[in-house]
């Protein structure tokens, strides 16, 4: 899948209000370019879902525009530019469809009036299933899969759709560690191929692990840009207010003799760690050598 020009998602001054008069999103603006994994981060009710809805034409903004690849939303959807991976709770798992049926549904936009899959549709669907390691499960009814497998099937459907923009709604909720790794690997491959992934998540610790861009929202866009610039303690405090829990090393029983050899253990969520200036710390240095170097220099200058 070579990409002639990088896909662009533009959200310009979008305001969405509902029939009951509630303004879910006010003057939201940001711009993302393909070859990126962008985390969409905010508390419940911050407008994450509304933003997704606006990008998928489920709600019409009262003001402002959404442009995908330079086209209005509806035209972009018709051109199969956008794929969507739903949350597990949104899917009726008892519906009598097989894994194979679900993945082929990703191809409907390319099929004729009768939606009869052709040879190309089948081979793309097969390849997509193989890519998420679910080809052996193609005849299973979707309710008979584990949480992680279910997620991978819907990811395969998005792959089969061959869309340049992929929206993922809480992709790591209720999945096992293997699936999480598989999904992150896959997202990185897609990024390398020029796709644009917008991932809504409440799991803050996972954001620095795989997102290179972040959009922080709370009824409007608070900050948008590269992860290390946006994901600072100050910005997160603005986005989350008092809802975050802290563990401060300087106030804890951690002593000097522990040095930096403190181990953080959490259950299924990754910890989010900030340095003393409130800047983001990554769990591994590999891939972030530049950030480390830059900070070392700033420290030396002081």
């Amino acid at each position, binding site marked *: 899948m070579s990409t002639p020009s990088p896909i662009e998602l533009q959200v310009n001054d979008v305001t969405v209000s509902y029939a009951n008069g509630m303004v879910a999103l006010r003057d939201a603006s940001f711009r993302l370019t393909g070859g990126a994994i962008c985390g969409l981060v905010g508390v419940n009710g911050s407008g994450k879902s509304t933003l997704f809805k606006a990008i998928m034409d489920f709600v019409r903004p009262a003001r402002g525009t959404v442009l995908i690849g330079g086209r209005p939303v509806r035209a972009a959807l018709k051109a199969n530019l956008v794929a969507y991976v739903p*949350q597990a709770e*949104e899917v009726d798992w008892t519906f009598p469809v097989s894994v194979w049926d679900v993945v082929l549904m990703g191809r409907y936009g390319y099929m004729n009036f009768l939606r009869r899959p052709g040879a190309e549709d089948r081979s793309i669907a097969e390849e997509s299933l193989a890519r998420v390691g679910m080809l052996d499960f193609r005849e299973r009814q979707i309710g008979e899969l584990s949480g992680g497998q279910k997620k991978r099937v819907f990811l395969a459907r998005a792959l089969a759709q061959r869309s340049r923009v992929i929206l993922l709604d809480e992709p790591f909720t209720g999945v096992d560690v293997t699936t999480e790794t598989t999904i992150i690997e896959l997202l990185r491959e897609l990024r390398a191929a020029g796709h644009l992934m917008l991932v809504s998540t409440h799991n803050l610790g996972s954001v620095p692990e795989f997102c290179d861009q972040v959009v922080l929202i709370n009824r409007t866009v608070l900050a948008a840009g590269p992860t290390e610039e946006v994901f600072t303690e100050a910005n997160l405090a603005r986005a989350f207010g008092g809802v975050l829990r802290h563990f401060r090393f300087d106030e804890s029983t951690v002593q000097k003799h522990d040095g930096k050899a403190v181990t953080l253990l959490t259950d299924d969520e990754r910890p989010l760690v900030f340095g003393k200036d409130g800047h983001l710390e990554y769990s591994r240095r590999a891939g972030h050598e530049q950030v480390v170097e830059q900070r070392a220099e700033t420290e030396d200058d002081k």
Partner: protein
Amino acid sequence: MIETLLTPLEYDYMLKAIAVSGLIGGVCAFLSCFITLKGWSLMGDALSHSVVPGVAVAYALGWPFAAGAFGTGLLAAAGMAFVKTKTRLREDAVIGVVFTAFFALGLFLISIRPSSVDLRTIVFGNILGISDPDIVQVAIISGVTLAVLGLKWRDLRLFCFDANQARAIGLNVTVLHYMLLTLLSATAVAALQTVGACLVVAMLVTPGATAYLLTDRFERMIGLATAMGVGTSLAGAYASYFFDGSTGGCIVTLQSLLFILALIFAPKHGLRAARRRRRVAAHDFALEGGTRPPDAFSGLKQTRPEAGFHP
């Protein structure tokens, strides 16, 4: 013996009744797969009662009954949608209020003009007395419904399964919504002739519900439901001759019997299968002395999630 069994087939009216019942039974059953999976069963009941005033008016004015019925059916659907969006009432209350309003109006209209149409015909059906023009109307409705379902079942399946995905690939979900609603009204009108307003919902739900217990494949579900719909309708209409009983009652009783059989004996989703699974799980649990296998109950149908979009 054979002669006795063949007697109903010697009568023209019985042959017509059996054939028309089979056709309507099949169409309703085909549609029932979508209705049960979409969660519109109550809607089917509501629409089948809401067509009554339309039928009354149509007969009084000498119009085709289907035109009047279809009109008030859609009017009721629009009324329900309107009340639901404009008030804070829950959907079941809205459906309950609107359809009984229509049904009551229908009963009232018929009672003040008793000569035009028999109340019993509408409420309980009168397939044995169906007139040729009515047969033509039923045949047209059935033909159109079968054609639309046959051509667009994949789109409608996606709409029932995942309306968000349908929208995301650029399908017009509003059109699909009204397509299904229109088909539901149309078949409710057709089925009114066979089993009457009270039992239409059974024709539109039971075969699909039964087939749902028997299979995990949509295509097979349609096949099973349609076969059961046609079979029970043919057999029910035929058998009602011997019992000299209500045709509609006979057909729906047969459908309900099949449902009970499926409920108990269905290979995977039946009560016996569930009990067997529980025993195996308990046995394994005792053997391992450890944790219960997590998927011990996964074969059971679980509750449906609320439809909608909640990122």
